[in-house]
């Protein structure tokens, strides 16, 4: 059987240690980890950006072997940055990666039709985020690689986007999504991958990962009565030693 995604020894010099990664059947995998833990680097390595090493096969095909027109049917990468180099109309931006019908469909799905003719630099950051998400969803590739897609979205659209990703998975697409909202990730993901210092340190069921000591150690936070709270030090135990005055999260080990 051909796996949807099989990545062997993928790495990025100085940012991501070579690692193996696989998605057998369509699933929503959320990458979690503190700033600088390697989430973006793993997405880059899978999307073959920036001189990534190792071997990636999506549906058994190497992205490097494909011309751009075929490659965009295989994978789609959404960067965390919402910057656009030129003030194109929203519709034209979405069409950069797909044909007209697909672009219109993706814009309708994200309720962007009425902004279609508007220049992207005249949209709010949240609206621009949705335009860029529509761009990434439009060609309906086998694998979606999204970096912090819910950043800048209001609560309603955060939920709608996660539902939309779930729908994509039910339609046979795979999705790997880096995000910081652990609750949202746990609620919608089929699998959570925890990263720290450029390496995958845990990978499994959302509930298991969220309750693991590893997560506490990596993030320096713990869930107490339904609320995330900062630990004073990643290795310390007990409820008494939260930092005074709501201080910042201690650095990971």
């Amino acid at each position: 059987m051909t796996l949807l995604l099989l990545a062997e020894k993928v790495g990025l010099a100085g940012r991501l240690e070579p690692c193996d990664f696989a998605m057998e059947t369509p699933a929503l995998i959320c990458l979690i980890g503190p700033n600088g833990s390697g989430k973006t680097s793993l997405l880059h390595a899978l999307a073959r950006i920036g001189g990534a090493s190792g071997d990636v096969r999506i549906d058994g095909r190497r992205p490097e072997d494909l011309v751009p027109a075929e490659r965009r049917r295989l994978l789609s990468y959404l960067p965390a940055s919402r910057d656009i180099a030129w003030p194109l109309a929203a519709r034209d931006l979405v069409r950069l990666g797909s044909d007209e019908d697909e672009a219109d469909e993706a814009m309708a799905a994200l309720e962007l039709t009425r902004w279609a003719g508007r220049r992207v630099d005249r949209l709010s950051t949240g609206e621009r985020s949705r335009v860029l998400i529509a761009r990434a969803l439009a060609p309906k590739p086998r694998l979606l690689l999204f970096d912090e897609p819910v950043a800048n979205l209001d609560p309603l659209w955060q939920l709608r986007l996660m539902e939309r990703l779930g729908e994509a998975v039910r339609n046979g697409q795979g999705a790997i999504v880096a995000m910081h909202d652990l609750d949202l990730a746990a609620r919608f993901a089929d699998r959570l991958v925890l990263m720290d210092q450029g390496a995958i340190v845990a990978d499994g069921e959302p509930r298991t990962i969220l309750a693991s000591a590893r997560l506490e150690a990596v993030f320096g936070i713990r869930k107490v009565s339904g609320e995330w709270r900062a630990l004073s030090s990643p290795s310390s135990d007990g409820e008494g030693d939260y930092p005074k005055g709501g201080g910042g999260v201690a650095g990971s080990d």
Partner: protein
Amino acid sequence: MSRLPCILLALALLAAFALSLALPWPPIAALLEQDRPLALALLWELRLPRALLALAYGAMLGASGAAIQGLFANPLASPDLTGTTSGAALGAVITAYIFGFSAPLALALGAVAGALGALLLLLALAGPRAETATLLLAGLAISALAGALTTLALALAPSPFAFYDAYEWLMGSLVDRSLEQTAFAAAPALAAILLLLRLGRALDSLTLGEEVAQSFGHDVRRLRFEIVCLTAFGVGACVAICGAIGFVGLVAPIFARRLTGGHPGRAIAPAALIGGLLLLAADLVVRSAPLGRTLPIGVVTALLGAPFFLWLVAHMRWRLAR
């Protein structure tokens, strides 16, 4: 790009080209009656090279300006503001006045090397996707350095007339070039434009950022290398024959993107047409100026282009301040 502006642009270009051959009309009309072969020779050997050079050089400036602006993601990047034309002029001056090679091929090679050096220095100084200020400062520094070195080369040249000799050429001129010289500028320009047109799609995808363009499968480093080399090749060859002409490479792409809905890559073709049209028009201004002598065409493009550049800077500042 919609069809109507494209047709209008092509018609305007044809009209400007025809006017460029026909104007001033009275001497041609008189000659056609008295000495037909001489009239045709005048058209063929004087006016045709001039019109072809204006078309080719303008188109090259427009196309490379569009490509450079797309590459740097900056509407203020252009062959002249990045120091490319000054670098090319320096290369040609050193070839001609220090090494003493004045054949068109040698001049073209010297100018291409100079242009390439300037663009590579710019990439090293400002980085591939520079902020406007960094880009302009680096371009200014390179232009100033190339200008100073050009003056130095002319001062050190064995010929005491080097300054006088080079003055008209340095200011940019299309006058009295032979068909052979025209070919040395127009052929590389045409080749470079055709090759730049292939890169339009990759440049358009660069609108979404380098990472997305890479995820599409475009090799951004190679794209950068190709644009730099093609610009140096085409602009260098034109500068070797006609000297440095400014602002066309800045203005043409800005108008062209208005026709392509802002797409930087798709703007290469219309920018080439607009560039050709602008330089033909500037040359028509040169011919019809009632001064009794020929103005360097580079002076005309600078006089028209510099206010536009200032407006653009003010406009960008105003937009940022909003």
